[in-house]
């Protein structure tokens, strides 16, 4: 990785840590007996006197980026709509950063619809939703090769049921690592 990429990644990580409410990965290899909260911008400069002077505080950017997309894997859609709502700007941003950080990452964007209507037409509608999410990611700089928009149409509902409450949970795109 080129130096300016690292700088960029560090900068994004800092921004991410500042604006994200997602908890950091608890498995990060940090030993901190003072149980002082660790965040990306402070972790590197340990306060003198609180620990060994030879101790190095590790920042694992990948782990932080993974943590940022934890529980951020589903985008829901309005009826008959393919627009990625503003509510998901943070989710899209977190995935875009993670994908840009590791260009070897590959994701499947799986579009789904509610149960109403034909199977093939719904497959196409789910595809349209998946492609809308792909577009939102690419606008953020994600390479097309990293993400494959696909559709399951109405074949795999998240929730069984024949009312709007169930339908609303089924109109979705799931972002899955390959």
């Amino acid at each position, binding site marked *: 990785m080129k130096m300016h990429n690292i700088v960029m990644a560090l900068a994004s990580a800092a921004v991410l840590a500042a604006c994200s409410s997602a908890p950091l990965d608890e498995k990060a290899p940090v030993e901190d007996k003072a149980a002082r909260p660790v965040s990306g911008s402070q972790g590197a400069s340990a306060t003198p006197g609180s620990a060994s002077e030879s101790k190095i505080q590790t920042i694992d950017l990948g782990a932080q980026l993974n943590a940022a997309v934890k529980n951020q894997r589903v985008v829901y859609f309005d009826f008959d709509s393919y627009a990625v709502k503003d509510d998901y700007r943070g989710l899209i941003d977190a995935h875009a950063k993670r994908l840009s950080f590791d260009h070897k990452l590959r994701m499947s964007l799986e579009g789904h619809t509610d149960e109403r209507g034909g199977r093939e037409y719904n497959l196409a509608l789910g595809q349209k939703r998946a492609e809308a999410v792909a577009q939102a990611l690419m606008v953020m700089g994600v390479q097309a090769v990293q993400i494959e928009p*696909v559709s399951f149409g109405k074949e795999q509902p998240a929730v069984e049921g024949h009312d709007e409450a169930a339908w609303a949970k089924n109109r979705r795109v799931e972002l899955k690592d390959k």
Partner: protein
Amino acid sequence: MSENSFTSSQRILSRIRRFLLIATVLGCSAPVWAQFRIEISGVGGTQMPIAVTEFRDEVNCPQPVSGIIRADLERSGQFSLANVAGAQLSETSVPAWSDWRGRNADALAAGSITKLADGRYDVRFKLWDVVKGQDLGGESLAVPADDLRLAAHRIADKIYQKLTGERGVFATRMAYVTKAGGRYALRITDADGEGGQVALASPEPIISPAWSPDGRELAYVSFERHKAIVWVQDLSTGRRRVLADFRGSNSAPSFSPDGQSVALTLSRDGGSQLFVMDRNGGNVRRLTQTQAIDTEATFTADSKTLYFVSDRGGGPQIYRMSVAGGSAERVTFNGAYNISPTLSPDGRSMAFITRVGGGSFKLCVMDLASGNVQQITDTVNDEKPSFAPNGRLIVYATRAGGRDVLMTTTLDGTIKAKLLSTQADVREPTWGPFGN
């Protein structure tokens, strides 16, 4: 009962249930005959009354051959069944014409079943014109036990053809998908929905089966690799191959009637667009160039025109265009949602699904010359119509009693029969071509 535990006794039970159910649905209070009589309503005087007696020694044969023949003829909508109680007749008999005229039968069929030394069965039948007191011919078929149902369907086809002048479809097959307990199966059955065999069992969804015109292969969409991929499977050998696995979704396969190519929907260039490829997967060419959804293509009988669904005008409507490319012409104008077109073999009618007020999805038939459209069902979740190869019946999926079920109907909607009775959800029917 699990979907794959169709022992013959359960099958018979399910048949009885099925006919009881049809009688209930149609509001008939007539007694259900032990011989699997289907109760039908809403027909005029156009049906020919026919008597089909129990074949001699049929009781020693593992299939209810005469019952299968009777059910076939009745489901076709072209025949009504005359009373055969107490009659003992075979193909060698000389019928007592006055007796059969007294039973109001215009035609009479009888036969015999003999087990041969090699284990096969010799099934013979003869058909008579009761009105004229005339022998209309007969036939003998020697078949293994596994083909007894097929023999019965072939006899029904002979009778149908002799009396109507058209080919029967009883010996054809259907493909459909069942879902039970989170498992999916692509099944092939006789045209009456019985005698099912599994072509593919999978934990992931299967949709859109499509027959090759020679009836040997089935194309379908399987999600077994966690995306929509089009496969083609040889039914007798079980050999199968990927036909289309491009980036994105691959779906809605349809063979051209000349057997040369397959139309399908690919999202490889972004959006869902129509493509045509050779049946071996080569020579892929894009047919539509729109920002809209274009899908569900189906060929006309001459393989030159495609009917398909597009939402280029806002909502999904049915259009047609030349396989050679060019502009598309809109076909449906009523309603905001028209999908799943399928054409009758003579090219005169198109069956499709329309959405009507309140979110109902209804099977419709359009007369293509006049553009007149008729809704032909009372159900509200109809899907995926498919014509019988003689164009006289349509099979479709719908919901009844909280389950996905299959129905057949005549084109005018007057005669309907539910196929199968199983605990599984049954969907995606597609009627196979004529056999040899």
